[in-house]
């Protein structure tokens, strides 16, 4: 790998941005000093590219909708319940699940940085880390929801969880109507990433079918 790097460095860099050049320089210094194993870098990235993502959280939600014992476990010990599905670790060590109801809608933000439950949702999207979301989610959640095409009755209480400490939050969206008898796999297809952040709702079976997510 370090030979590969040296090889790359011999090429003309005129097409690279200042940031790219800085990152290349930093990487080659750290690898050359032996501080970083290049293969470890690949595996770190691969974990979130291939294994960990919102499909995990969707399985948690689908099980909670299907299995009352699991829902009870989730309420008492979210990290423990989620671990039974094999989802554990970094940025999800101490989880809390918040259930949406017809009266209460939950929505998660981190105004100070980007705290997000990695084991169940993967890495956060750019908008979640951006100034517009971080500034307005706490002060104008209905305005933000409107930008996500989510409109709630004015008497629905909106609870915004500003996760600036060490707890990480997963929203449990309401189970859509018309899903009686659905398998966990079918239910999981209705659970979008945004519905687990609180900037979306779970899809109706019709919407999921029209998007090709459900057969």
């Amino acid at each position, binding site marked *: 790998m370090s030979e590969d790097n040296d090889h790359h460095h011999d090429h003309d860099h005129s097409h690279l941005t200042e940031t790219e050049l800085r990152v290349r320089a*930093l990487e*080659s210094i750290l690898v050359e000093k032996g501080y970083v194993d290049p293969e470890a870098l690949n595996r*770190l990235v691969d974990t979130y590219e291939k294994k960990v993502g919102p499909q995990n959280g969707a399985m948690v939600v689908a099980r909670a909708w299907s299995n009352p014992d699991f829902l009870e476990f989730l309420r008492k010990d979210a990290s423990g319940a989620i671990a039974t599905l094999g989802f554990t670790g970094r940025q999800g*060590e101490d989880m809390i699940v918040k259930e949406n109801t017809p009266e209460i809608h939950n929505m998660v933000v981190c105004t100070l940085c980007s705290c997000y439950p990695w084991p169940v949702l993967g890495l956060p999207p750019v908008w979640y880390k951006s100034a517009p979301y971080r500034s307005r989610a706490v*002060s104008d959640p*209905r305005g933000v929801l409107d930008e996500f095409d989510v409109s709630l009755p004015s008497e629905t209480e909106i609870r915004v969880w*500003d996760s600036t400490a*060490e707890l990480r939050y997963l929203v449990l969206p309401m189970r859509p109507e018309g899903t009686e008898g659905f398998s966990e796999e079918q239910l999981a297809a209705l659970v979008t990433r945004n519905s687990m952040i609180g900037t979306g709702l779970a899809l109706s079976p019709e919407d999921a079918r029209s998007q090709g997510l459900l057969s």
Partner: protein
Amino acid sequence: MNGPHDYGGLHGYGPVLQEADEPNFHADWEETVFGLTLAMGATGLWNIDASRFARESIPPAQYISSSYYQIWLEGLIKILRKHDLVSAQELAGAPPEVRVKVNRILAARDVEKVLASGGSAKRDADIQLGFAIGDRVRVLNRHPETHTRMPHYVRGHIGVIADIHGAFVFPDTNARGEGEQPGICYGIRFEATELWGEDADPHHAVYLDLWEAYLEPA
């Protein structure tokens, strides 16, 4: 610190822009910065709160105009330079010279295990609770120049204890290298009308998890 990162309640940043089918990384260098940050964090030479402070203390104009992984990059470089693991000369092209020996290198075979086990900041500490669920508390009006998890928009405001999470590493001291000093972290409910004034939506509340050291009885 009262830094550029403390966005809650600010105006002027415009609408939230979503990207359809967004990838995790928008360029190869973002993957590299992500990997380098986690790999160097695994050396144990500093803690995650020190990393956060390094990012927050980027000059405000630069912070606001940087992308997320540019902020990670500058934060990482700052902390690597502080620990003498990288020099400005090396970044400018001087031959690398090992000045500090690092004992813990994250090996590829350990990546999966390290990520799956994580590192909880929760501690088994026998600490007496200063507050009970239902208590009214006021967030102190303090402005530390170092890392803190007391967002500016709740300082001086009154909330109600809604949950008691137990003892967690105190980020303020941990970031300064003064030890974990675990403290009780509480879930606290603030009415939007308390935070944003009487015109705010009465059906809106904001919850924050705050350490006891940030609070006083109200």
